Protein backbone atom coordinates (compact mmCIF):
# COMPACT_ATOMS: atom_id res chain seq x y z
CA UNK A 1 0.00 0.00 0.00
CA UNK A 2 2.88 2.36 0.69
CA UNK A 3 3.84 2.28 -2.97
CA UNK A 4 0.38 3.34 -4.11
CA UNK A 5 0.35 6.20 -1.61
CA UNK A 6 3.76 7.43 -2.72
CA UNK A 7 2.97 6.96 -6.41
CA UNK A 8 -0.25 8.95 -6.10
CA UNK A 9 1.55 11.79 -4.36
CA UNK A 10 4.38 11.92 -6.90
CA UNK A 11 2.12 11.69 -9.94
CA UNK A 12 -0.28 14.30 -8.57
CA UNK A 13 2.65 16.61 -7.83
CA UNK A 14 4.06 16.18 -11.33
CA UNK A 15 7.24 14.50 -10.10
CA UNK A 16 6.34 11.44 -12.20
CA UNK A 17 4.35 11.32 -15.41
CA UNK A 18 2.70 8.03 -14.46
CA UNK A 19 3.33 4.94 -12.34
CA UNK A 20 2.86 1.20 -12.13
CA UNK A 21 2.31 -0.14 -8.61
CA UNK A 22 2.98 -3.74 -7.65
CA UNK A 23 1.16 -4.85 -4.52
CA UNK A 24 1.58 -7.38 -1.73
CA UNK A 25 -2.16 -7.60 -1.00
CA UNK A 26 -5.16 -6.34 -2.89
CA UNK A 27 -7.23 -3.31 -2.01
CA UNK A 28 -10.55 -3.10 -3.82
CA UNK A 29 -12.46 -5.56 -1.61
CA UNK A 30 -11.55 -3.60 1.54
CA UNK A 31 -14.29 -1.25 2.73
CA UNK A 32 -14.62 0.99 5.75
CA UNK A 33 -15.23 -1.85 8.19
CA UNK A 34 -14.71 -5.04 6.20
CA UNK A 35 -12.07 -6.79 4.14
CA UNK A 36 -11.79 -10.03 2.16
CA UNK A 37 -11.01 -11.49 -1.22
CA UNK A 38 -7.30 -11.32 -0.40
CA UNK A 39 -7.54 -7.57 0.11
CA UNK A 40 -6.50 -5.93 3.37
CA UNK A 41 -6.65 -2.14 3.15
CA UNK A 42 -7.94 -0.02 0.30
CA UNK A 43 -4.74 1.32 -1.22
CA UNK A 44 -6.35 3.52 -3.87
CA UNK A 45 -8.78 5.26 -1.52
CA UNK A 46 -6.14 5.77 1.18
CA UNK A 47 -3.74 7.19 -1.42
CA UNK A 48 -6.45 9.52 -2.72
CA UNK A 49 -7.32 10.80 0.74
CA UNK A 50 -3.68 11.34 1.63
CA UNK A 51 -3.06 13.26 -1.59
CA UNK A 52 -6.12 15.38 -0.89
CA UNK A 53 -4.86 16.06 2.63
CA UNK A 54 -1.59 17.23 1.08
CA UNK A 55 -3.52 19.53 -1.25
CA UNK A 56 -2.28 17.72 -4.34
CA UNK A 57 -5.61 16.71 -5.92
CA UNK A 58 -9.36 16.57 -5.48
CA UNK A 59 -10.84 14.54 -8.30
CA UNK A 60 -9.88 10.98 -9.24
CA UNK A 61 -11.30 8.76 -11.99
CA UNK A 62 -10.96 5.03 -11.25
CA UNK A 63 -11.34 2.35 -13.90
CA UNK A 64 -11.51 -1.10 -12.29
CA UNK A 65 -11.08 -4.06 -14.64
CA UNK A 66 -10.42 -6.72 -12.04
CA UNK A 67 -12.78 -9.68 -12.54
CA UNK A 68 -14.88 -9.05 -9.45
CA UNK A 69 -16.94 -6.09 -8.28
CA UNK A 70 -14.93 -3.54 -6.29
CA UNK A 71 -17.27 -3.65 -3.31
CA UNK A 72 -14.76 -2.15 -0.89
CA UNK A 73 -13.88 0.79 -3.09
CA UNK A 74 -17.55 1.45 -3.82
CA UNK A 75 -18.35 1.36 -0.09
CA UNK A 76 -15.72 4.02 0.55
CA UNK A 77 -16.49 6.35 -2.37
CA UNK A 78 -20.26 5.94 -2.76
CA UNK A 79 -21.00 9.39 -1.31
CA UNK A 80 -17.94 11.09 -2.78
CA UNK A 81 -18.96 13.01 -5.90
CA UNK A 82 -15.32 13.84 -6.64
CA UNK A 83 -14.55 10.21 -7.40
CA UNK A 84 -15.60 8.69 -10.72
CA UNK A 85 -15.66 4.94 -10.17
CA UNK A 86 -16.29 2.75 -13.22
CA UNK A 87 -16.22 -0.96 -12.39
CA UNK A 88 -16.26 -3.59 -15.13
CA UNK A 89 -17.72 -6.60 -13.33
CA UNK A 90 -20.94 -8.64 -13.35
CA UNK A 91 -23.74 -6.15 -12.73
CA UNK A 92 -25.14 -3.08 -14.46
CA UNK A 93 -25.65 0.09 -12.39
CA UNK A 94 -25.36 3.85 -12.73
CA UNK A 95 -25.76 6.19 -9.78
CA UNK A 96 -28.03 9.21 -10.02
CA UNK A 97 -25.14 11.62 -10.45
CA UNK A 98 -23.41 9.33 -12.94
CA UNK A 99 -20.17 9.07 -10.99
CA UNK A 100 -20.57 5.44 -9.92
CA UNK A 101 -20.97 2.97 -12.76
CA UNK A 102 -20.95 -0.82 -12.98
CA UNK A 103 -20.84 -2.64 -16.31
CA UNK A 104 -21.73 -6.31 -16.61
CA UNK A 105 -18.98 -7.82 -18.73
CA UNK A 106 -19.47 -11.37 -17.53
CA UNK A 107 -22.85 -11.91 -19.17
CA UNK A 108 -21.83 -10.09 -22.36
CA UNK A 109 -18.47 -11.72 -23.05
CA UNK A 110 -18.73 -15.16 -24.55
CA UNK A 111 -21.78 -14.28 -26.61
CA UNK A 112 -19.84 -14.80 -29.83
CA UNK A 113 -17.28 -12.76 -31.68
CA UNK A 114 -13.95 -11.66 -30.29
CA UNK A 115 -14.08 -11.57 -26.50
CA UNK A 116 -11.15 -9.17 -26.43
CA UNK A 117 -12.95 -6.78 -28.73
CA UNK A 118 -16.25 -7.10 -26.86
CA UNK A 119 -14.55 -6.34 -23.57
CA UNK A 120 -12.57 -3.40 -24.93
CA UNK A 121 -15.72 -2.00 -26.53
CA UNK A 122 -17.52 -2.21 -23.18
CA UNK A 123 -14.72 -0.34 -21.45
CA UNK A 124 -14.45 2.17 -24.26
CA UNK A 125 -18.17 2.83 -23.96
CA UNK A 126 -18.08 3.17 -20.19
CA UNK A 127 -14.98 5.13 -19.27
CA UNK A 128 -13.26 7.64 -21.59
CA UNK A 129 -16.24 9.89 -22.28
CA UNK A 130 -17.24 9.93 -18.62
CA UNK A 131 -13.68 10.77 -17.64
CA UNK A 132 -13.63 13.58 -20.17
CA UNK A 133 -16.73 15.14 -18.64
CA UNK A 134 -15.55 14.51 -15.10
CA UNK A 135 -12.15 16.23 -15.56
CA UNK A 136 -10.15 14.31 -12.94
CA UNK A 137 -6.78 15.35 -11.59
CA UNK A 138 -5.53 11.76 -11.88
CA UNK A 139 -6.72 8.56 -13.59
CA UNK A 140 -6.31 5.22 -11.79
CA UNK A 141 -6.52 1.92 -13.64
CA UNK A 142 -7.05 -0.93 -11.18
CA UNK A 143 -5.58 -3.72 -13.29
CA UNK A 144 -6.44 -7.33 -12.53
CA UNK A 145 -5.35 -10.01 -14.94
CA UNK A 146 -7.63 -12.61 -13.36
CA UNK A 147 -9.95 -12.17 -16.37
CA UNK A 148 -7.30 -13.67 -18.66
CA UNK A 149 -8.04 -17.04 -20.19
CA UNK A 150 -7.14 -19.76 -17.69
CA UNK A 151 -6.98 -17.59 -14.58
CA UNK A 152 -9.54 -17.76 -11.77
CA UNK A 153 -11.83 -15.02 -13.11
CA UNK A 154 -11.54 -16.22 -16.72
CA UNK A 155 -13.55 -14.13 -19.17
CA UNK A 156 -11.68 -15.58 -22.12
CA UNK A 157 -9.47 -12.54 -22.57
CA UNK A 158 -6.04 -12.73 -24.14
CA UNK A 159 -3.05 -10.48 -23.70
CA UNK A 160 -4.31 -8.29 -26.52
CA UNK A 161 -7.14 -7.07 -24.30
CA UNK A 162 -4.80 -6.00 -21.51
CA UNK A 163 -2.52 -4.07 -23.81
CA UNK A 164 -5.63 -2.47 -25.24
CA UNK A 165 -6.69 -1.47 -21.73
CA UNK A 166 -3.24 -0.05 -21.08
CA UNK A 167 -3.48 2.08 -24.21
CA UNK A 168 -7.02 3.16 -23.38
CA UNK A 169 -6.03 4.21 -19.86
CA UNK A 170 -2.89 5.95 -21.04
CA UNK A 171 -4.67 7.80 -23.84
CA UNK A 172 -7.58 8.79 -21.61
CA UNK A 173 -5.20 10.20 -19.00
CA UNK A 174 -3.41 12.17 -21.70
CA UNK A 175 -6.72 13.61 -22.85
CA UNK A 176 -8.16 14.51 -19.47
CA UNK A 177 -5.31 15.19 -17.01
CA UNK A 178 -1.99 15.67 -18.80
CA UNK A 179 -1.20 11.96 -18.65
CA UNK A 180 -1.33 11.61 -14.86
CA UNK A 181 -2.06 7.88 -14.53
CA UNK A 182 -1.59 5.27 -11.81
CA UNK A 183 -1.81 1.60 -12.72
CA UNK A 184 -2.42 -0.47 -9.58
CA UNK A 185 -2.08 -4.22 -9.79
CA UNK A 186 -5.11 -6.18 -8.61
CA UNK A 187 -6.03 -9.85 -8.96
CA UNK A 188 -4.57 -12.61 -11.08
CA UNK A 189 -2.69 -15.66 -9.95
CA UNK A 190 -0.55 -17.02 -12.78
CA UNK A 191 3.15 -16.18 -12.66
CA UNK A 192 3.64 -16.71 -16.38
CA UNK A 193 0.87 -14.24 -17.16
CA UNK A 194 2.32 -11.67 -14.80
CA UNK A 195 5.72 -11.84 -16.44
CA UNK A 196 4.24 -11.65 -19.94
CA UNK A 197 1.72 -8.88 -19.30
CA UNK A 198 3.29 -6.45 -16.86
CA UNK A 199 6.49 -5.46 -18.73
CA UNK A 200 4.70 -4.45 -21.96
CA UNK A 201 2.13 -2.51 -19.96
CA UNK A 202 4.92 -0.57 -18.27
CA UNK A 203 6.53 -0.06 -21.68
CA UNK A 204 3.26 1.45 -22.87
CA UNK A 205 3.20 3.84 -19.91
CA UNK A 206 6.75 4.89 -20.77
CA UNK A 207 5.86 5.11 -24.47
CA UNK A 208 8.48 2.54 -25.39
CA UNK A 209 8.19 -0.44 -27.75
CA UNK A 210 7.23 -3.66 -25.92
CA UNK A 211 9.93 -6.24 -25.34
CA UNK A 212 10.33 -9.52 -23.50
CA UNK A 213 8.35 -12.75 -23.80
CA UNK A 214 5.80 -13.31 -26.56
CA UNK A 215 2.39 -12.16 -25.38
CA UNK A 216 0.34 -15.30 -26.07
CA UNK A 217 2.17 -18.56 -26.82
Amino acid sequence: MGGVVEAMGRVAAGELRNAFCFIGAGGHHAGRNFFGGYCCFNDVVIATRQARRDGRLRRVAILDTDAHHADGTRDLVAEDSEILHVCICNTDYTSGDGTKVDVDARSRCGLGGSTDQLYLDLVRGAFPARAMLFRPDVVVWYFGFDTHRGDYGDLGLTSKAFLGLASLSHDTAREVCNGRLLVVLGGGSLADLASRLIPPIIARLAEQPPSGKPLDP
Partner: protein
Amino acid sequence: MRDRVPGGVTGIFYHPSFSRRSYLTSGRRLAAFPGALNSLLQSSNIALFQCAPVSDELILLAHDSHLIPEVEADPF
Protein backbone atom coordinates in the same frame (compact mmCIF):
# COMPACT_ATOMS: atom_id res chain seq x y z
CA MET B 1 16.43 2.38 -6.48
CA ARG B 2 16.03 6.06 -7.17
CA ASP B 3 14.78 8.67 -4.80
CA ARG B 4 14.25 11.99 -6.57
CA VAL B 5 13.48 12.00 -10.28
CA PRO B 6 12.24 14.64 -12.68
CA GLY B 7 8.75 14.67 -14.23
CA GLY B 8 8.24 12.84 -17.51
CA VAL B 9 9.34 9.61 -15.85
CA THR B 10 7.35 6.41 -15.31
CA GLY B 11 7.72 5.13 -11.77
CA ILE B 12 7.58 1.46 -10.84
CA PHE B 13 6.74 0.81 -7.20
CA TYR B 14 7.82 -2.59 -5.96
CA HIS B 15 9.04 -4.40 -2.85
CA PRO B 16 11.05 -7.65 -2.82
CA SER B 17 8.56 -9.17 -0.38
CA PHE B 18 5.91 -9.10 -3.15
CA SER B 19 7.85 -11.76 -5.01
CA ARG B 20 8.06 -14.00 -1.96
CA ARG B 21 4.44 -13.84 -0.86
CA SER B 22 1.66 -11.94 -2.54
CA TYR B 23 -2.01 -11.80 -3.30
CA LEU B 24 -3.70 -15.10 -4.02
CA THR B 25 -0.63 -16.89 -5.19
CA SER B 26 1.04 -18.94 -2.52
CA GLY B 27 3.81 -16.47 -3.08
CA ARG B 28 4.71 -17.13 -6.65
CA ARG B 29 2.85 -14.92 -9.10
CA LEU B 30 5.52 -12.21 -9.01
CA ALA B 31 8.45 -14.60 -8.71
CA ALA B 32 9.99 -13.34 -11.97
CA PHE B 33 10.18 -9.77 -10.66
CA PRO B 34 12.07 -7.52 -10.53
CA GLY B 35 14.26 -9.46 -12.99
CA ALA B 36 11.54 -9.32 -15.65
CA LEU B 37 11.93 -5.55 -15.62
CA ASN B 38 15.67 -5.49 -16.31
CA SER B 39 15.49 -4.31 -19.90
CA LEU B 40 12.92 -1.63 -19.06
CA LEU B 41 15.07 -0.35 -16.23
CA GLN B 42 17.83 0.49 -18.70
CA SER B 43 15.62 3.34 -19.90
CA SER B 44 16.30 6.81 -18.62
CA ASN B 45 12.58 7.55 -18.31
CA ILE B 46 11.73 4.60 -16.04
CA ALA B 47 12.60 4.54 -12.35
CA LEU B 48 12.18 1.82 -9.74
CA PHE B 49 11.09 2.74 -6.22
CA GLN B 50 10.90 0.51 -3.19
CA CYS B 51 7.52 0.69 -1.45
CA ALA B 52 7.66 1.92 2.13
CA PRO B 53 5.39 0.78 4.96
CA VAL B 54 2.55 3.06 5.98
CA SER B 55 1.42 4.22 9.40
CA ASP B 56 -1.79 3.21 11.14
CA GLU B 57 -2.80 6.86 10.91
CA LEU B 58 -2.84 6.58 7.14
CA ILE B 59 -4.96 3.41 7.22
CA LEU B 60 -7.48 5.24 9.40
CA LEU B 61 -8.08 7.69 6.57
CA ALA B 62 -10.29 4.99 5.08
CA HIS B 63 -10.92 2.28 7.66
CA ASP B 64 -12.32 1.77 11.13
CA SER B 65 -9.65 1.13 13.74
CA HIS B 66 -10.85 -2.40 14.50
CA LEU B 67 -9.90 -3.47 10.98
CA ILE B 68 -6.18 -3.20 11.70
CA PRO B 69 -5.98 -5.99 14.31
CA GLU B 70 -8.45 -8.04 12.29
CA VAL B 71 -6.21 -7.87 9.21
CA GLU B 72 -3.15 -8.65 11.34
CA ALA B 73 -4.89 -11.74 12.69
CA ASP B 74 -6.00 -12.95 9.25
CA PRO B 75 -4.24 -16.21 8.33
CA PHE B 76 -3.74 -15.13 4.71
